[in-house]
């Protein structure tokens, strides 16, 4: 029998914790519920959930700061569930490393669908990518991505944490270096051909990935924007001992 996925719900409203807990348990998930940031930290000391549903307005800490801190040291997927539903809140939430954002009030089935989608996205890559590079180590511009451990190392050997989405996206670029990839292709490759509810997600993830890689967003040298076409990883990539790309992508920024 499969081990149920463990979801941690962080929300100060007991009615929301009850509703989300009931919904997820009814659908086969194991659920932990805590009311605040302190509860989140205590739980993370004891166990590693598969996904966190995080409210933004918590009594002791700002959920956005928690999200950022979480992302800096963990790859656990995060869905923000908040009544702060303005576009800017969504954008900031995604910028802070959340994998998805759902405004309150919400339809329980929509939350369930998003939980499943984010978990699937965090775990899956297209078959061709998974089969090819499950044990690979990529080297590019002094950086190293170790696929089995999902660890990214900077040229100064500093460990850089990536969210599930960022890892998937970087892996796709490393599999297709110096090739212009459209937003649709990036969505397909990195998200397993799902319909994305928030169509700027790829752009935001690119922006976050550039920051992780220390790439200047105004004049990126690694992940370049190709106007009206998409993005290209403009760098030589080595996988294991073999060269996996050329230096010149032949594209502008």
């Amino acid at each position, binding site marked *: 029998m499969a081990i149920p996925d463990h979801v941690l719900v962080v929300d100060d409203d*007991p*009615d929301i914790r009850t509703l989300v807990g*009931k919904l997820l348990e009814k659908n086969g998930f194991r659920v932990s519920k805590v009311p605040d940031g302190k509860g989140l930290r205590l739980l993370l000391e004891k166990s590693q959930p598969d996904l966190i549903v995080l409210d933004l307005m918590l009594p002791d800490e700002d959920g956005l700061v928690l999200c950022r801190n979480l992302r800096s040291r963990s790859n656990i997927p995060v869905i923000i569930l908040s*009544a702060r539903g303005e576009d800017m809140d969504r954008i900031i939430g995604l910028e802070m490393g959340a994998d998805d954002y759902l405004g309150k*009030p*919400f*339809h*329980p089935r929509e939350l369930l669908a998003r939980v499943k989608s984010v978990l699937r996205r965090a775990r899956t890559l297209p078959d061709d990518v998974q089969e090819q590079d499950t044990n690979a180590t990529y080297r590019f511009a002094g950086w190293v991505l170790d696929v089995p451990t999902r660890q990214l190392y900077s040229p100064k050997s500093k460990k850089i944490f990536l969210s599930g989405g960022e890892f998937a996206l970087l892996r796709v670029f490393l599999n297709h270096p110096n090739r212009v990839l459209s937003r649709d292709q990036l969505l397909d490759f990195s998200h397993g051909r799902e319909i994305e509810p928030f169509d700027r997600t790829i752009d935001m993830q690119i922006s976050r990935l550039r920051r992780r890689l220390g790439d200047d967003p105004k004049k990126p040298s690694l992940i370049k924007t190709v106007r009206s076409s998409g993005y290209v990883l403009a760098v030589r990539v080595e996988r294991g001992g073999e060269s996996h790309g050329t230096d010149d992508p032949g594209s502008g920024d």
Partner: protein
Amino acid sequence: MGVEPEKITVRIDEDLAEIVPGYLVNRGKDLEQLPLALVEGNFQTLRTLGHRMKGSGAGYGFDGISEIGRAIEEAAKREDREGVEQGIADLASYMDRLEVVYE
């Protein structure tokens, strides 16, 4: 002879039957807490209670509670006593007329 107020019938997924009564009990508690907070001029509490109602109501199937919560939260933000009073009256009326059908 008074006229019976019109019922508000809300149809809710029977999967939620176990937790909906508790949710409605909590809204009854809100109806005790909201006027107290208003008397004390505690607009932060009013705002929090409205915010929570807004966030949770529709998830349980009670869109009306989300709407009333939104109105209370907005009125509390403006420190608009009359707006909050109206929201409390609307909540009391909603709860009084509510009829839940599980299906």
